[in-house]
């Protein structure tokens, strides 16, 4: 035998309270919203407009995210083609593999100039590429409006990124700085196999593979199988791009200091 379900309710409720009070609350909200609706009419008004700076600025104590865009916002990239040294570091550091190095006019036929082309369909705006760029020529701006009509348009070639650079948007100033005393490429000679990879990929051709004397094999000892050459780096030409470190198959190149 189950009890029938009955709705229980407070019968002492005063009609003034449950009609008049909500209506007064709504009217107060209406009056407030008539002057300052919370909605920002987005394409025509933006939170970064000066008129919102005072209202939702940092001073107001509101949580981060409702204020104007911050300077370290990671938006679309700006690329300065002129100073790019085609070092590949951005493409290497990209976790989403969205950077392709494509040829741009301006290089010599033997060493075509290659600059990053970014596929925003994949980019996660992590900023690793701009951290890695040794020249500071790839950095992230505060622009966040990137919608396009097709996937193909999401791929921004270097020229387009250069166009964004030319608009002089506020840029994200944060880059990992290398310690001042560790700005040389150092080689751990016993590991090197003389493969020529660093010399081949160096954008400034400052690595020369120098012959080293082939040691005499002691009896019973087997000499390592390698080319008897070692990279010698011309520090005055080196642009500290780090490409050689990245391409070295034996990981024998490091950042360090040489006296």
């Amino acid at each position, binding site marked *: 035998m189950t009890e029938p379900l009955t709705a229980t309710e407070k019968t002492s409720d005063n009609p003034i309270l*449950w009609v008049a009070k909500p209506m007064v609350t709504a009217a107060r909200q209406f009056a407030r919203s008539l002057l300052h609706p*919370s909605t920002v009419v987005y394409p025509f008004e933006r939170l970064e407009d000066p008129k919102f700076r005072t209202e939702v600025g940092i001073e107001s104590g509101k949580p981060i995210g409702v204020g104007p865009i911050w300077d370290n916002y990671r938006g679309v990239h700006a690329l300065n083609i002129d100073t790019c040294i085609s070092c590949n570091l951005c493409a290497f550091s990209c976790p989403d593999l969205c950077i392709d190095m494509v040829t741009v006019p301006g290089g010599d036929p033997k060493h075509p100039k290659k600059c990053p082309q970014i596929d925003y369909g994949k980019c996660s705006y992590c900023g690793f590429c701009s951290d890695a760029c040794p020249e500071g020529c790839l950095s992230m701006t505060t622009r966040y409006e990137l919608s396009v009509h097709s996937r193909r348009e999401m791929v921004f070639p270097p020229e387009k990124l250069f166009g964004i650079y030319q608009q002089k948007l506020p840029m994200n100033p944060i880059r990992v700085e290398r310690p001042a005393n560790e700005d040389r490429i150092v080689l751990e000679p016993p590991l090197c196999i003389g493969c020529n990879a660093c010399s081949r990929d160096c954008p400034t051709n400052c690595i020369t593979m120098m012959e080293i004397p082939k040691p005499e094999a002691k009896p019973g000892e087997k000499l390592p199988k390698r080319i008897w050459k070692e990279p010698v780096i011309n520090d005055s030409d080196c642009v500290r791009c780090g490409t050689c470190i990245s391409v070295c198959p034996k990981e024998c190149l490091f950042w360090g200091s040489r006296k």
Partner: protein
Amino acid sequence: MSSLSLYGVSFDLVHLLLTSIGSVLPYPLDAWITNGTLVLVLSVLVFAAILLAASMINTIVLIWWERKLLGRFMDRRGAMHVGYAGLLQNFADGLKLFRKHTFKPAEADTLGFFSGPTAYMVTSMILFGVLPISTGWNSGSLPLSLLLALAIFSFAPLFIFVSAWSSNNKYSLMGGMRSAAQMIAYEVPLLLAVVAVVIVSGSFDLTTIVTEQQNYWFWGPLFLALVVFVAGMLAEMERIPFDLPEAEAELVEGWNTEYGGMLFAFFMLADYLRGLVGSFLVVLLFLGGWTMPSWVPGALTNFPLAGIFWFLVKTYLVFGLFVWIRASLPRVRTDQLLRVGWNRMIPLSLAAVFLAAALVTVKCLPVFGCLPSPGV
């Protein structure tokens, strides 16, 4: 004054047009074209077209008004982009619905499914035509226009029920049942509140009721009747807090669940048209219709079409009150709704009737002045 009715104007227009066309036509044609029957038929059509345009434009602007007000109540802005402040947004929405494919569920009853919304729409339109808006905008003087309007107003539950039942959907049917129960429960207090007005004004003619309010509007002395009338109107229009028939949270969309495209637009338009007519009735019965109190400077009341202007201003303010109520109050339960209807509203409306009778007997009130000519 009544010669200046809307129908009279359209008759004159058509007559003028046809006689000027007829004057340049050769013999057998001009006699045919100036023939009285043609003038009559055409002027009825013109009259209907004017009514249709006026009601549709008003309805759509009313939807805009609700969206904007509700937006501010909810700390939004409402429609913004199409036209000035989104004024044309609803025309765009209407066009979209108009272009949509109209279909009916396989098991639905064809006749009921299609005739329900159409009849609902048509009766709401007729309602718009019956109500006078100013001394110039009326459909002639009908001695019982108030009764006629309320009679047409109470057609709605029938058509809602027909379309709900023929949709062959349990949610529609439940919505239709609720709608019928609710409308019948609230019809009684609504009519009793109207009786209070009729007692004081002594007439069933809406034009007379308005002219009776020249000296003081009825909302003050008949405040109780106004409260009952507004509550009843909310229930009749199925607006929040009395929108149980289409309670989205429990009944999908209530009795219009199965409707899409233009048929849905019919329901939507007719709903708001009834909202408009409900606000019209409140203005006509309690807020002095197109008259303005004598302390209002003459410059504000003497321009052409001033009557229509002030009438519409009042109407939109009254509808704003409905929107305000919608923004504030939660939906009630069916049992609460019916209990309030039968147990509270009817006693309240009876009290309003007695108050009105007392008012007519006393004839003068300290604040509101004296009745101009005590009615019957």
